[in-house]
């Protein structure tokens, strides 16, 4: 990625351009909206430029736009690979250009594990469009029928004569042809795929290993100042008064700036507070310590997470809003057959991205240019425009690499802070959050309480199943009156795919007192924990093998059609129980389920679900020592993500998911006292380290020609239940509330 130090203020991609290239009228890839003109990319200015995603220069350089954010998810490599494949471009001659926020690319909100699934066809069509123009240009030059021409690596060939012409040599002629319509395109058959399905390294791999890759934390502009902000300790709090005399005496501190509080709902707005402006980050941090601020704590100062937990549990014990109902669960419960019930709990979680929130922005001549590690640059445009009172099209949001995101960096509050301060100060401002700021002022995953109950037949299989979840809804971030969950119910709650005739799903009300947001795997983190733990409890209760039991609950292979008001399955992605069974059986087989002798203190646990259209199952092996210490020697994860673009990176994502899930299970817990978050750094919000993480995660990819699905999140939320099920197998101790750090395992 290009360094942005000491470059023109128009933005850093300009400098990479060769002069003289002329611009074609831009045609629009189907489904992509053309917005107002913004900064031209090298692809825009290349000789051949049939759509917003690609351009070819006369020297054969192919520019491909990466319009989604790169945070370790691999999309900056995967999406251009899809286009390059369909274009038959030589990957070594591809230069990837990171897009600014611009609606002409379509959706750029890099969340919900959908970069590949959402843009697979669009990338292919963008490549095929360009390939067809090159073929037509060659055929015209050679005066031969188009049907006699085909592409090979970076060349068009005339098949009868073997004559070839390089892409670069054809770019100018191709640029004079009309851009073909979608109906004229012929996509390559799967058998001709060159890159899709083949392992590749990250485009930025060497830069990362050399310390040369540019993250948000690394953005610099001449004349910039640094800001560190003391936020209201309680959500909705405001500054009553403050003294900065001591802060201003700190060497390198220039001034302080009061930032206005947000207008509810808080959405993505800055929290407000007092910013310390300084010559460097350290001085800004030091100055902050010397601020004396008197706060009005606001409406959430009575929030105590311990009390709240009890309230959630109490709500979950009572009838709640029914969101799915089949058969008659109550009648079955009243028949007098055996019933089992259990309660589960998952606390608030923080993202703790390795790179804390950080942003650089410059307000100049009524426009803002920002460099932001963001998952959501178009939202940053909106947010900054509103915060400083300019038009969206006057905000340029450059997207740096992200030092991980996990959902936190879809919320652009920190970018708006930088823009607001730059407008006030008349110079570029870099806002740097400390780790404490990150942990204490997050958009936390909701705290959740779940209640499950089943009536059992003589073999211990449920004849009726009830599940209730109660948690403050993430929509509270956008609607202060929100009390019930909405889309979160699609995260492994409504569509629990069990073959049980009487089935009822409920959701109860709760009010948010901290900012809530999505975190990698979102509501699945608590829903799948409850469901897959309860399945294991029922299996043991029935004296049956957990694997055999969960397959019995899934029932026979079939496509499940859930007829539930308000629930719609995405077209092209039916819930296929056969695929779910296959990953479950594969993970078990690879783990040696029922075949390996494990020894004292060891056990296996299994969990499986579908998330982001991907079917995934994990078998976790644990060892609990005589002292009660937990080790995770091995995990086997089977994944069916449909068509896979970069298997190497699917494996990496699932390995990482196992570690992320381990962190949630072992130690993830955010609590609050009097509205103030108790945790602040990696000492009191620990995440898994090398000696606590799974020693080895084996990822087994199911070959599939189904449409591509997501791989960033699905593997996270099977880990906590599989891990706790393994602990039960090893010790007989059932964990129903996370994190494990609150429990003695012996």
């Amino acid at each position: 990625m290009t360094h942005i130090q000491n470059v023109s203020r128009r933005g850093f991609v300009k400098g990479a351009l060769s002069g003289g290239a002329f611009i074609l009228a831009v045609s629009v890839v189907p489904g992509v909206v053309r917005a107002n003109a913004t900064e031209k990319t090298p692809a825009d200015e290349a000789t051949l430029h049939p759509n917003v995603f690609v351009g070819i220069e006369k020297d054969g350089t192919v520019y491909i736009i990466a319009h989604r954010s790169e945070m370790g998810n691999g999309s900056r490599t995967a999406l251009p690979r899809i286009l390059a494949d369909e274009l038959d471009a030589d990957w070594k001659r591809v230069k990837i250009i990171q897009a600014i926020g611009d609606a002409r690319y379509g959706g750029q909100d890099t969340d919900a594990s959908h970069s590949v699934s959402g843009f697979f066809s669009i990338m292919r069509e963008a490549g095929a469009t360009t390939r067809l123009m090159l073929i037509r240009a060659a055929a015209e030059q050679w005066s031969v029928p188009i049907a006699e021409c085909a592409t090979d690596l970076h060349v068009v060939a005339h098949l009868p004569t073997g004559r070839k012409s390089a892409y670069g040599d054809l770019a100018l002629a191709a640029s004079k042809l009309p851009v073909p319509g979608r109906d004229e395109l012929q996509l390559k058959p799967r058998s001709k795929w060159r890159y899709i399905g083949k392992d590749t390294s990250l485009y930025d791999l060497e830069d990362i290993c050399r310390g040369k890759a540019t993250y948000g934390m690394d953005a610099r502009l001449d004349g910039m100042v640094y800001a560190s902000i003391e936020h209201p300790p309680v959500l909705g709090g405001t500054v009553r008064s403050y003294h900065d005399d001591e802060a201003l005496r700190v060497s390198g501190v220039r001034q302080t700036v009061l930032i206005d509080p947000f207008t509810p709902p808080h959405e993505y707005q800055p929290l407000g507070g007092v910013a310390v402006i300084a010559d460097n980050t350290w001085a800004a941090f030091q100055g902050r310590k010397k601020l004396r601020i008197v706060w009005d704590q606001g409406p959430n100062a009575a929030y105590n997470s311990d009390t709240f937990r009890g309230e959630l549990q109490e709500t979950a014990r009572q009838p709640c809003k029914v969101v799915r109902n089949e058969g008659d669960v109550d009648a079955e419960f009243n028949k007098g057959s055996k019933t089992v019930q259990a309660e589960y709990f998952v606390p608030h979680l923080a993202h703790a991205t390795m790179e804390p929130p950080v942003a650089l922005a410059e307000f100049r001549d009524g426009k803002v240019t920002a460099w932001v590690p963001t998952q959501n640059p178009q939202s940053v445009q909106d947010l900054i425009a509103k915060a400083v009172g300019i038009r969206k099209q006057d905000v340029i949001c450059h997207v740096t690499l992200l030092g991980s995101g996990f959902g936190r960096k879809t919320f652009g509050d920190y970018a708006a802070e930088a823009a607001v301060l730059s407008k006030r100060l008349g110079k570029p401002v870099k806002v740097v959050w400390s780790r404490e700021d990150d942990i204490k002022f997050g958009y936390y995953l909701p705290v959740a309480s779940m209640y499950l109950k089943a009536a059992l037949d003589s073999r211990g299989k449920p004849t009726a199943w009830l599940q209730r979840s109660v948690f403050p809804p993430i929509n509270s971030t956008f609607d202060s009156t929100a009390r019930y969950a909405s889309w979160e119910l699609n995260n492994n709650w409504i569509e629990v795919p069990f073959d049980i005739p009487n089935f009822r799903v409920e959701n109860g009300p709760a009010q948010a007192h901290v900012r809530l947001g999505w975190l990698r795997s979102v509501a699945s983190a608590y829903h799948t924990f409850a469901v897959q733990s309860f399945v294991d409890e029922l299996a043991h209760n029935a004296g049956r093998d957990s694997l055999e039991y969960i397959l019995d609950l899934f029932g026979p292979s079939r496509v499940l059609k859930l007829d539930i008001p308000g629930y719609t399955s995405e077209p092209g992605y039916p819930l296929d129980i056969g695929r779910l069974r296959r990953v479950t059986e594969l993970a078990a087989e690879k783990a040696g389920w029922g075949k390996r002798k494990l020894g004292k203190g060891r056990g296996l646990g299994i969990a499986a679900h579908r998330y982001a259209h991907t079917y995934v199952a994990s078998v976790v092996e644990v060892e609990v020592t005589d002292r009660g210490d937990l080790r995770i020697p091995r995990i086997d994860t089977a994944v069916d993500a449909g068509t896979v673009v970069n298997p190497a990176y699917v494996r990496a994502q699932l390995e990482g998911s196992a570690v992320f899930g381990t962190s949630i299970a072992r130690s993830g817990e955010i609590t609050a006292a009097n509205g103030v978050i108790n945790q602040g750094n990696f000492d009191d919000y620990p995440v898994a380290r090398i000696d606590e993480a799974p020693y080895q995660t084996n990822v087994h990819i199911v070959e599939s020609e189904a449409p591509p699905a997501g791989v960033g999140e699905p593997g996270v939320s099977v880990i906590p239940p599989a891990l706790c099920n393994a602990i039960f197998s090893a010790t007989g101790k059932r964990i129903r509330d996370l994190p494990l750090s609150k429990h003695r395992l012996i």
Partner: protein
Amino acid sequence: MIQLKVNGVERSFSGDSEMPLLWYLRDILGLTGTKFGCGEALCGCCTVHVDGEAIRSCILPVGDAAGKEITTIEGIAENGLHPVQRAWMDLNVPQCGYCQAGQIMQAIDLLKRKPKPSERDIDEQMAGNICRCGTYQRIRSAIKAASAGGAS
């Protein structure tokens, strides 16, 4: 005036001697390969070498680095790649990559002192470096690959 050597270049600094070496490297010298992660020596993102030993630059006052030789990720290989960087690339270790400079600097230190580290050595020496993306098993493999005699 603090005198020190950074990646072989003599430097002098007249600012706050309490400023952690991390911010001197990043904000004053513009060497941004070394990352800020926690400010409390809890995560290892900021790991550099001082006189050849891995330290957390986020808590070392620049004044305490006076007269010493500092090596950052940018200076670890004069030409080409350090074998540890090469191993990191061969095994596709990074995901987001933010922590990896610190991981590499810590691993180089480990291998210098223990050319053939045991599993326990790796656990002990690398446990101070957090990777939130969870690349630990590849870090372990890369260290083994880069160790004396190598192993893949």
